[in-house]
């Protein structure tokens, strides 16, 4: 079972909402599928993300994968730890491996995301 306090995209990103602040990362399933993460490219603070638009890149030894924004909004923080410790994405995907914090532009966009049960069903289907 995936964490129940988060919402998810079909592209395997998660978002945690705290007022109008949204923290974004990739799911444990995504991290496992990628394998050892060795590089994460994140947007600069101040960049405005568009819901479901690509905002960065995560690379494992073998694969390159785009990151997609679960919600629109301005980036207020990009996880500085990932430059030196990209492996946090594998070891703590829902914690220290978070990627960006975004000032939520439109709270209603959250309704377009998957709830934990729907995301569980998605990964169970492979």
């Amino acid at each position, binding site marked *: 079972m995936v964490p129940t306090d988060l919402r998810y995209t079909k592209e395997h990103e998660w978002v945690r909402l705290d007022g109008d602040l949204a923290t974004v990362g990739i799911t444990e399933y995504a991290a496992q599928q*990628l394998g*050892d993460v*060795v590089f994460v490219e994140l947007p600069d603070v101040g960049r405005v993300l568009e819901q479901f638009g690509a905002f960065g890149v995560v690379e494992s*030894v073998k694969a390159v994968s785009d990151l997609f924004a679960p919600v629109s909004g301005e980036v207020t923080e990009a996880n500085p730890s990932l430059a030196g410790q990209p492996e946090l994405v594998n070891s703590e995907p829902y914690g220290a491996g978070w990627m960006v914090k975004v000032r939520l532009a439109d709270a209603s966009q959250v309704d377009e995301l998957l709830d934990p049960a729907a995301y569980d069903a998605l990964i169970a289907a*492979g």
Partner: protein
Amino acid sequence: MTDVLETPAHVTPLLDRHRALGAKIIEFGGWLMPLQYSGIVAEHRAVREHAGLFDLSHMGELFVEGPQAGEALAAALVSDPPALAVGRAHYSMICAPDGGILDDLIVYRLADERFLVVANAANAQIVSDALTERLAGYRAVLDDRSLATALCAVQGPESAAIVGPITDLDIGALRYYAIAEGHVAGIQALVARTGYTGEDGFEVFVDTARASELWDVLSAAGQSRGLVPAGLGARDTLRLEAGMPLYGNELDRSTNPFEANLGRVVKLDKAGDFVGRPALEKVAADGPARLLSGLIVRGRGIARHGHPVLEDGRRIGTVTSGTQSPTLGVPIAMAYVAPAAARPGTMLAVEIREQPVAAEVVPLPFYRRAR
């Protein structure tokens, strides 16, 4: 990120073993093979520090026999197999008449009149067909035993300590690039001291019917010495650190051996004609149009296959392989660049997602084991 497995022509005889170990399985060269078990980086480190066990049953095993086997191979390949002593091996290539590489190979001399040619899985049929054609007129026959032969490799500094106690062969006397016929845990085998990782190691060829038994005895023999199963993912990062080319990346039909810095493999001074000789003599005389080079990315980003290489904003080459080096901790790559830009120390750039990222030309290999 969904795994779509095409229906491959072949499946490793060890598929059950890999599934039981929780391996991620991929299609590679027309075969279902293990990509990784615990993870590419952990497997890579295990091979550098202790040992890894690889299933290489996808490789093509082509036996060439007959009174003129050596002579026929000398005419078919760029190397000079008759110069091999019995029990020794060398790296070779089979080229088209225009000098383009059809495959890179290891040629083992098993006896005066018996050779083993090991080809890449994806090219095994092409090599088999080309050899059949090129052997015509010689007193030599080709026996393609690719499907009847399984291959397991033990690679890493602990390899000799793992394989030595379970074979009737004198492992200490088996030199690098040598091969001997004997038994491993009672299973009839060809044991070669060759590999594709930059470490000491052994490749063990057995009948497909004995593959599972061989895998099990090697696993058990290595348990106390840190041996772990290692997949094709780690094999790729290990060979890249060791500066070894991969067919399909560094080598292909439109590349000649001199461009790949493998001119030493082409024996232009051997007696007799061989396929590709006139074209390769011309390249040797004129110099290659581009050169395979090592790059270390100095900026932020990982160079990957297909990325453009720039010098002062002008495109002068293309990345063939790239990854984050688990041993060195920096992004490494191999690339074809203009010969003038191939000198170590030259600062170039790799275009990664439309951004130029600084990269320095360095000598190959990136990693060399302490001997």
